């Protein structure tokens, strides 16, 4: 048939996504967990049988079916995770070994072979450096099992973490490389590989406005203040110190900023908060009540409104996050190195004014749908904030345009982009009926 394979449909293809992170709270450390959760959910919702293999919560079932059995979760490494309750990346080496060692055999016998026998094409999407080796072994298993020609193997880089551990020659021989932005593509050119770009997405539900009452309550509580929000790992790449320094300068100049932050467990957090205190900002740690609803979360933050920096130390719900995006005068996603910037896109989808960095955020157009911060100079943030406060119509335009832009990046759009590339990749990988 022209193009090598038939159009990829739920009736003739299935997806297998392999990732360290996943939908369990145990398995969430950054954007990857969110990405694979939403992507697999969207694939299954479109009708594709989708397997998600991830390092799951040891207390939950090893196998779980969702969405009428179309989404099958495989919680891998549970026997190791039970020794590491801290989360997905604790005991990383032990988990990595186990994934490489045990998954290919299972994948071949329990997933790939039955699917191929049922006439389906198997599309494997492996995420991040952790899965590079296992994908090579899966390719070997498929090859020796005589069904390599019925599988398309994809490997996606969401970041540059541990690129030095990846055997690029081998990986690019067995799979098609993908990444999430043009910036990452350019970075990877330096490694002698040329990945295709398939961006990240946002879930459709992000376009439902957050509860207006919650947004209003938060705005009202911080009336007369400049409300800023930042969420992400405490990583120097996220330019936390730049953000904190900008807040300190705004305070010095009488802008009365209130900075709600949610970092991670990373040691850089100590440096960030130390800088804040050193610049005279009052920092207060806050723990949000778990599972008690967004109103209680808002309440807990409001209770700390005397502080300049409200440092959330606990899990934040998606609803609370979206409320903050919408209520804040600005969300600071001002990374210095951002492969894609999922926080930026989520904030834009929620109608937020989003300050993004100038690396992987292909979707950002400054002062049109977001504010692009191009240096590590805190004064740049301060200057743009004063500009926006003087130009409310720009703010309105940015908020409206942000939502429009984000709409072009729903997971369904991403899947369409991916499916569009698969026919080409099938030919490259010698896939045939």
């Amino acid at each position, binding site marked *: 048939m022209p193009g090598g394979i038939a159009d990829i449909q739920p009736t003739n293809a299935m997806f297998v996504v392999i990732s360290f992170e996943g939908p369990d709270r145990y398995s969430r450390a950054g954007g990857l967990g969110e990405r694979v959760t939403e992507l697999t959910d969207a694939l299954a919702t479109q009708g594709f049988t989708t397997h998600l293999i991830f390092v799951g919560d040891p207390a939950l079932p090893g196998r779980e079916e969702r969405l009428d059995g179309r989404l099958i979760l495989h919680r891998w490494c549970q*026997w*190791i995770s039970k*020794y*590491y309750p801290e989360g997905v990346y604790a*005991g990383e*080496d*032990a988990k990595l*070994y*186990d994934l490489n*060692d045990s998954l290919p*055999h299972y994948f071949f016998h329990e997933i790939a072979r039955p699917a191929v026998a049922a006439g389906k094409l198997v599309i494997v999407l492996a995420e991040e450096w952790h899965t590079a080796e296992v994908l090579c072994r899966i390719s070997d298993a498929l090859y020796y099992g005589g069904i390599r020609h019925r599988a398309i193997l994809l490997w996606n880089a969401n970041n540059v973490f541990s690129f030095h551990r990846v055997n690029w020659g081998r990986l690019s021989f067995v799979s098609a490389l993908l990444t999430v932005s043009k910036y990452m593509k350019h970075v990877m050119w330096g490694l002698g590989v040329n990945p295709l770009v398939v961006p990240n997405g946002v879930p459709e539900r992000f376009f439902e406005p957050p509860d207006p009452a919650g947004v209003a309550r938060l705005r009202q509580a911080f009336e007369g203040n400049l409300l800023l929000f930042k969420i992400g790992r405490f990583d120097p790449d996220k330019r936390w110190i730049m953000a904190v320094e900008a807040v300190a300068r705004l305070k010095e100049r009488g802008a009365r900023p209130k900075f709600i932050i949610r970092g991670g467990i990373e040691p850089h957090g100590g440096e960030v908060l130390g800088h804040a205190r050193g610049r005279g900002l009052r920092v207060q740690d806050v723990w949000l009540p778990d599972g008690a609803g967004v109103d209680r979360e808002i309440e807990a933050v409001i209770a700390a409104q005397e502080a300049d920096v409200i440092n959330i130390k606990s899990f934040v719900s998606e609803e609370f996050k979206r409320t903050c995006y919408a209520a804040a005068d600005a969300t600071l996603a001002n990374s210095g190195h951002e492969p894609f910037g999922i926080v930026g896109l989520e904030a834009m989808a929620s109608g937020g004014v989003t300050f993004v960095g100038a690396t992987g955020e292909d979707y950002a157009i400054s002062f049109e749908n977001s504010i692009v911060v191009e240096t590590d100079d805190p004064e740049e943030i301060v200057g743009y904030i004063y500009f926006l406060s003087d130009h409310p119509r720009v703010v309105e335009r940015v908020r409206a345009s942000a939502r429009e832009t984000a709409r072009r990046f729903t997971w369904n759009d991403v899947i369409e982009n991916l499916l569009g590339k698969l026919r080409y990749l099938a030919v490259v990988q010698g896939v045939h009926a």
Partner: protein
Amino acid sequence: MAEYLAIYCVAHQPRRVKLPAQPIPRGASPEDIERCLFDERMNERYFRKVAQWCYYPATEMWLRLLDRGMSLSLGFSLSLIRQMQRWDPALLQLFQRLVAHPRCELVAVEPYHSFLMFIDLPYFGQRMREACEELERLFGKRPVVADTTEMAMSDPICDTLRRAGFRAGMLDGRPWVLEWRESTHLYHHGGLKLLPRHFELSDDVGYRFSNRQWPGYPLMAPTYAHWLREAWGDLVFLAWDYETFGEHHSRDTGIFEFMEHLPDELQKRGITCLTVGGAVEQFWDRSYELPLGPFASTWAGSGGMEFFLGNSAQQALFQLMLAAYNKAKLTGDPKLLDLALWLIQSDNLHLIQWYGRAGSEAEVSAYFTPQEWWALGPHGIIWEQQCVYRNFIAALEPYV
């Protein structure tokens, strides 16, 4: 001229460690430590291969040979028995049929094919007694003769076997052990009868049979029977790996045909076959004193322990074995001690004898190194093997 012949075979498969070393989660249970240490998928693969090419055809062959007047003494490591129980119970039943034959005798060997006798003699003695009990339960015969791992023998080992209740032991009949004595007699040391293996005649079949460069190639049954009959002394004691038949020498070398012709050739020359226990009884009153020293002899390599401890990698690994065993003992946990006993399996030293060496012994050692490991490179194998032990020792910490 020797009128009697005793043949002994030991059947064994190692429990190979997992390379590259698998990190052991902190606080791991003994069961989870175990799954990190051993490569059971690889062990099963090798076991099934050897079962197909050796254990099944060789056992069928021996059943026929015993019916035709030959005798066989047979040792099993529990290492192999555990693998049969797990992966091929039908094979174990076939072996049970062989052992049940009146002309087959069961010999006790160190259960895990370990070097426990160099680390903890009293416990070695206890383990040998326990092995007898398990073998008796499985095969319905109780061994009275003992072999040790790699046929290691020394004065302390000899004393331990005697105190464990055995009537006889074995050793390799090397000149440096026997000095002016012939290997074709029964000996004793400190109350334990000793059968010296005729290493030249044994190795003619065990090692050289398929070697086309060997002047004796091709070895035929009449020639070999003639050599056996011409040996000066009371009896010839031959000892081989059971895997000689079909594994070390593949079927196409003619090893099975050679053996099938042997009973008639032995009979023609008036050679009587005995089990090792039968030989001990036959010559009980005609045994000779054999002085043994503290340095152990072995049937491997040149006959000394340098085959296992002769290079720096082996010496380092043996130190790790000592640390692993002793730390496991400190925990007082029987399951952890059992894991340490697996880790002191001699094969782990055997298969790195090639490190920094060349020649026929190194080739034998490299042959036993799993081919899957060579992707790591020689240094990688040594490093990862050590990591297995280091990981285990670290994993014991919460239990001490």
